[in-house]
């Protein structure tokens, strides 16, 4: 018996090659589209702001300060969403991590509620490690709840959002702690290399690493495989539960780092804010082209999505328009971005269906048998 087997590759397949490539390029351009919108808005706001104030270096720096914590959370959210999960507890994690960090600083005498205190580098390092460990543990608990109890990630993290915030409020009696050692601000929080705050550079470095991991490593491929078809991943021998726990621990670790950054910039806790941060992070992630259904993720898109929110907020402030409009604009862009993505996907699939052999049940035309 000859092993002559040909899978349909007729003239339509060749034609599709070109159309497919063009459409694949379009599909990948979600991130690029948002980047163009960012650039357009920067130009627009610069042109119309009094004295082109929006385009000033000083304003650029304040954009960075505004978006660096948001970016850290959004990066964690991206890899979690890539595996078809969601982490609503990132803000609570940030708060709880920063509270534990402050407790460590207090215990080691690195705080002074009334006066000014500096130094205590050892206490700062222990506080950093505490923040990271808290974030990691928070993520680990989320992972256990999701994989071992079988609670969906939405519900599990909604629960830990409430629990984490509650613990932070109990520990602090609901009042913020002030007067942390200014060394952590001078040497980290507001330290700059050129126009770039150090925490922002750190966030961008992490973004670069995550981008490489998602695209060029087995870990990244497996993450997207789990998001795309968890059963297929399981059957391919991937430890899906373990992988999911690790992803949630990474996003937790980034939330812990965000907690330390928050402390370093403001030298105080913010126990009643940050609760909406995960939703803002999710907005940035989805605007950037990461599919909420998993399997497709763009770190670059997440960066541009974070900047979009910051640019809108900052631009409206510079123009003297109430910043409440930023929320309206961001919401509208979110819906538009998802609608556009949906449009692209359905159009692409329609092209495949039009090839005739896309619908599995459809009998293909006889002329695409390739004789060998």
């Amino acid at each position, binding site marked *: *018996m000859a092993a002559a*087997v040909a899978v349909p590759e007729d003239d339509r397949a060749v034609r599709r*090659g070109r159309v497919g490539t063009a459409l694949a390029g379009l599909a990948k351009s979600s991130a690029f589209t948002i980047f163009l919108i960012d650039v357009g808005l920067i130009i627009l706001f610069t042109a119309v702001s009094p004295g082109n104030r929006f385009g000033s270096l000083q304003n650029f720096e304040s954009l960075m300060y505004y978006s660096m914590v948001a970016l850290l959370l959004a990066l964690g959210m991206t890899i979690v969403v890539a595996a078809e999960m969601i982490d609503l507890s990132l803000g609570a994690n940030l708060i709880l991590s920063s509270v534990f960090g402050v407790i460590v600083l207090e215990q080691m005498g690195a705080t002074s509620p009334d006066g000014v205190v500096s130094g205590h580098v050892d206490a700062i390092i222990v506080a950093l490690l505490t923040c990271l460990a808290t974030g990691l543990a928070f993520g680990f608990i989320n992972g256990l709840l999701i994989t071992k109890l079988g609670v969906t990630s939405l519900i599990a993290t909604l629960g830990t959002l409430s629990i984490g915030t509650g613990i932070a409020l109990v520990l602090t009696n609901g009042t913020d702690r002030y007067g942390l050692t200014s060394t952590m601000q001078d040497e980290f929080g507001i330290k700059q290399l050129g126009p770039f705050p150090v925490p922002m550079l750190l966030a961008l470095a992490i973004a670069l690493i995550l981008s490489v991991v998602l695209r060029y490593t087995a870990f990244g*491929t497996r993450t997207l495989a789990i998001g*795309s*078809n968890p059963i*297929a991943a399981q*059957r391919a*021998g991937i430890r899906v539960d373990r992988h999911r726990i690790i992803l949630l621990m990474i996003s937790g670790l980034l939330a812990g780092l965000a907690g330390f950054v928050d402390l370093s910039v403001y030298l105080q806790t913010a126990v009643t804010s940050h609760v909406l941060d995960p939703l803002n992070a999710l907005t940035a992630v989805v605007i950037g082209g990461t599919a909420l259904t998993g399997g497709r993720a763009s770190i670059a898109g997440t960066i541009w999505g974070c900047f979009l929110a910051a640019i809108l907020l900052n631009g409206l402030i510079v123009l003297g328009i109430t910043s409440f409009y930023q929320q309206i604009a961001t919401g509208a862009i979110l819906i538009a971005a998802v609608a556009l993505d949906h449009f692209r996907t359905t159009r692409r699939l329609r092209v495949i269906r039009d090839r005739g052999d896309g619908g599995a049940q459809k009998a*293909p035309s006889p002329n695409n048998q390739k004789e060998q």
Partner: protein
Amino acid sequence: MTATPSVPEVPPAIAGSHLSKQFGSVQALVDASVSVQPGEVVALVGDNGAGKSTFLNCLIGVHQPDSGEITVKGQPVQFSSVRDAQRLGVDCVYQDLALAPDLSVVDNMYLGHEVHQRGLRGRLGLLARREMIERADDQLRSLSITLPSLRVPVRELSGGQRQAVAVARAVMWASSAVFMDEPTAALGARQSEIVCELMRAVAARGLGVLVVSHDLPRILKVADRVSILWRGRTVREADARDVSVPDIVAAMVGYHEDVA
């Protein structure tokens, strides 16, 4: 059709003998046996509820049989998971294909078997994607499968092309036997023919092929032997040339058992 390669010295690629499996009060398998020689295509047929899926799942490590013995290349084995079976060169093409639609053809073929670069880059976890593409391309070529590109997401392939990718992946990692669960169920007539030819191509590489199918006329043409399950028992094993579709249907609905 090719003759049955029943050389006695060669141990079967995979064999299950006298397997039974009970789920609660349901005796899904009573006494099921099958043996697939290297290079042979064996069709496993039976009515709905006859225990085909349970039998297959026992042979691939999804379920553990309550009694009976499984051998791979003559060696008795016990699979506690699909991974155990894969390690011994037994792979499966699932009915739903188990592909990740968002991943490219090459990433799907290497899922769980990724190849890393050499040296430091590899230790950092970087994939040798160029090498992976070359090897996947060789694999597809050797089965005479042509695809527009190995970098396109599987989502953008046709039903027949997806089936071909799933088969090529299983063959790539299998060294003993490949199972196929209803490989033609979702395909049109001509694509079904292509998949059947693919089965012969896989067997021609010396792998044992066990196919579960409802498509009796088609599968009878491609298989060397037929094994018929009825209410959890193997009631008949026959050379595919010696049986007709009505014979098989009679055995599938238990006609022979009733007169016996």
